[in-house]
């Protein structure tokens, strides 16, 4: 499964989603918007990957979802992060920091 082997990218998508949801429960479209706006377009998560990640995270119990009606009166499925999700996020972020730090140690000229 090529899409499952995205490795860093997939892990990064998960972290981004979880982080986003710490701000507020959101629907999928909202999450995509939020990430694009926060990174000023630098990071764009593909919609397909976003939804796969959301459902995967929900199965793992890190997010939960609920149908609702948005401020603009549109029906949508809202996701919120769970206690386990927060723990996972903290662990992922720490891992990512170590990873990026290691990466930069290699990339920066000595």
């Amino acid at each position: 499964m090529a899409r499952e082997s995205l490795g860093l990218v997939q892990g990064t998508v998960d972290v981004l989603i979880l982080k986003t949801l710490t701000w507020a429960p959101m629907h999928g479209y909202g999450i995509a918007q939020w990430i694009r706006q926060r990174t000023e377009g630098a990071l764009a998560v593909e919609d397909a990957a976003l939804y796969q990640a959301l459902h995967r995270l929900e199965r793992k119990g890190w997010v939960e979802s609920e149908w609702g009606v948005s401020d603009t009166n549109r029906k949508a499925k809202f996701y919120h992060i769970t206690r386990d999700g927060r723990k996972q996020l903290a662990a992922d972020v720490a891992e990512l920091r170590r990873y990026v730090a290691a990466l930069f140690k290699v990339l920066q000229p000595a």
Partner: protein
Amino acid sequence: MSSDRPHRPHGTRPLFRFPWLSRRQVSADVDEELRLHIQQTAQELREQGWPAGEARLEAERRFGDLEFTRKFCRDEDLRREGEKRRMTILDELKQDLRYALRALRASPGFTATALLTLALGIGANTAIFSVVRGVLLDPLPFPQADRVVRLWNVDRALGIDRGWVSEPDFIDWRARSKLAESMGGYFFADGQLGLDLTGKGNPERISAALVTDGFFQALGTRALLGRTFVSDEHVPGRDRVVVLSHGLWTRRFGSDPSLVNKTLTLNGQPFVVVGIMPPGFTYPADQSLDAWIPVSFFGPDAIGRSRGSRFLSVVARMKPGVNETQLRAEVAGIAARLVREYTDNPGWDDASSLSIRDSILGEVRRPLVVLMVAVAMLLLIACANVASLLLARATGRQRELAVRAALGAGRGRIARQLLTENLTLATLGGLLGIGLGLVAVRAIAAAGASELPRAGDIRIDGVVLAFTLAVSIVSGLLFGLAPTARASGGNLEVSLRSGGRGTVGGAGQRMRSALVVAEVALAVMLVVGAGLATKSFARLLSVKPGFEPSNALVVVTGVPSRYPTAEGRANFYYAILDAIRRVPGVQAAGSIRDLPMQGNGEMNGVTLPGQAVLPGHELTVQRQHISTDYFKALGTPLRAGRTFEMTDREGAPLVVVVNDELAKRFWPAESAVGKTLLIGTTPIQVIGVVGDVRQRGLAEAVEPTMYVHVLQNFRIRMSIVVRTAGDPLTYANAVRQAIWSVDPNQTITSITTLDSVLGHAVSRPRLLAWLMALFGAIGLTLGALGIFGVLAYAVNQRRQEIGVRVALGATPRSVLSLVVGNGMLLAGIGVALGLIGAALVTKSMQTVLYDIRPTDPVTFAEVVVVLLGASLLASWLPARRALAIDPVTALRYD
């Protein structure tokens, strides 16, 4: 906002509230979510200026692999729902279980009472079911046993419905029947037919059945090793062949597989072992049988082969599709034709039949059914009792449950929790019940080992445990039904407001009262059954057997076949008796062919001189072959005349001693001594009259009997009765030595006491009486406990009311009569209903009762007294407590 509580953005409302989703819903949810996303993207694109037609396509393009995502999300969600469902059920169950155990621990008195009650009910059911299963339900050791039937010859005029069949008649039955696939005959009498097995090891008398060709084929059972007999081996000269039982093979030959085709010595003759039968096959014996040999081994000199000489029992295997009625009709037709064809066999022109299952189990089925009904009632009483306890407890717990409901537990959840509690209680009770059942089964199997066919099959195994589990669960549902319905259906606000006192009277009290009535009614039925069974047993025991059972030893042996002459056999017979008579302390010793309760002698047609009777229609009397001193040893009184002397031997005039019954039939007004009887045309003189002996069994009527001296009509079988000065068993060894002093190789079939022979004869009714009495006592106790519990509880609930009454001047007498009256009213209704039920139910006991009618008014009256007495006691104790209520404390109490 950093809460992880489930919540929604402000202003939204939940659209779904099911605890979990169906497959279709999951699928629809995913489709909807993705559709909404694409719709929103498309709208945004339109707002950015994309043409309406292309915006949607672009949105889908930007999304990525839509179909894969759809499938991926759907799979993830389905997996999640599955896990969630499992977790929820498991979690709630665990929670309920923990809660149930805590609740049960919190009220140890209630729990102990309920558990004990259930254990008694379930234990009794486990025990009886395992007996029923072992004896009645396990398949018979014959393939397609429903095609196997027993057949008998019938003589309507003589009133004999189940007569044996002569060998020539049987051969014609077998040859002419078109509906029977195979037909076999056998001769077997329990404990009476033995063969001397000599050679390696101790000489031993083994039990054997004599069989004709077709016997094994009709039953259909194949040999475990080797084979059964072939037709060729039922011909004199080629019939020195034997089939051994699994029991003998393992016991005597250590399961040696090379025994097949080897030779054994039986009655001094070489027999080739052709096969070993599988375990469990002992037909026609109930319990154990050692061997089968062809009946042709005993020639016409030993067993008559005329058409009048009936000795064969017949089994037949019907062709597929043939039913018992058709076969019986066919055989009856054959019998009728045979009577016309052969004039020497008048009268026996009909046939009767019974399925092999009924013929083996018919006698024990009824008592077992009675016991099954009894334990079912016991369980119902136990359930009613526990239900009543639960109801009382539920009233006290209304507040607790109301609080739980207020905290968000749904009605279903509360019902489920109560159900878990009840099932936990039932399962624990069931576990205890299995323990009780184990003990009981051992006791029953030990007590009934000799009296129940297939007692060896009684055991507690997976099937019995499954039954117990099912019974426990059903009980749990049953006794939990009313309390649960009430607790989860009640008005919770009301219970919260009532301050936890619960409601006085009302539906709960009515339900408990109804349960008490039901309990008392069931107890009445059970106790009536117990009363009938024990009375019947007592009456059976009070029957005078016609002999003195104490201080008498019984030795069963026989004259071995190596004495060819009549004189040699007679000498050996009396040598044995004389040796025993010389043992110090032996007061008398005499012998008979069949001991009372152990055999029915031979049947003879007898007439009086000068009487014109059709041949075959004479008065049928029992003929027993005895030695001198037999009546002295047995303790049977001589009424008139004399008994046998050694001079009544071959060559001397034929003489008989008759019993009272025979004397009364033939000479009601005068003395029988000196009168003459005719057997055929042979005149025989009556020399004495003795008291009646219950030969067939205590419950059976005494038959006219004549005793003949073995020296005038010899029989090899010896059942020696030894009258002793003291405890008969202390003489056993000396008697054995005395016999061996005559011949060290003499085989002794059994040594026991006359007491135990008699005890053996009543062991089945004794077992029934004991079990019924036990179940009746438990039922009575539980019923009384039920009344006590309900009244004690009611008194407790009504203490304020009673306090007010006392304060207002009620006398102790009126308080007493209030409570006792309440209890006796319930008991009265219960007793009335129970009597009606008992009258209907005990009818089924008719065949297991001796000398008492199933509707015996005395027993019914006694039961009413016992039940009302127990109820009075059970009501009086709580009433005393009501008397002790101090109005001041009672009113201040709340």
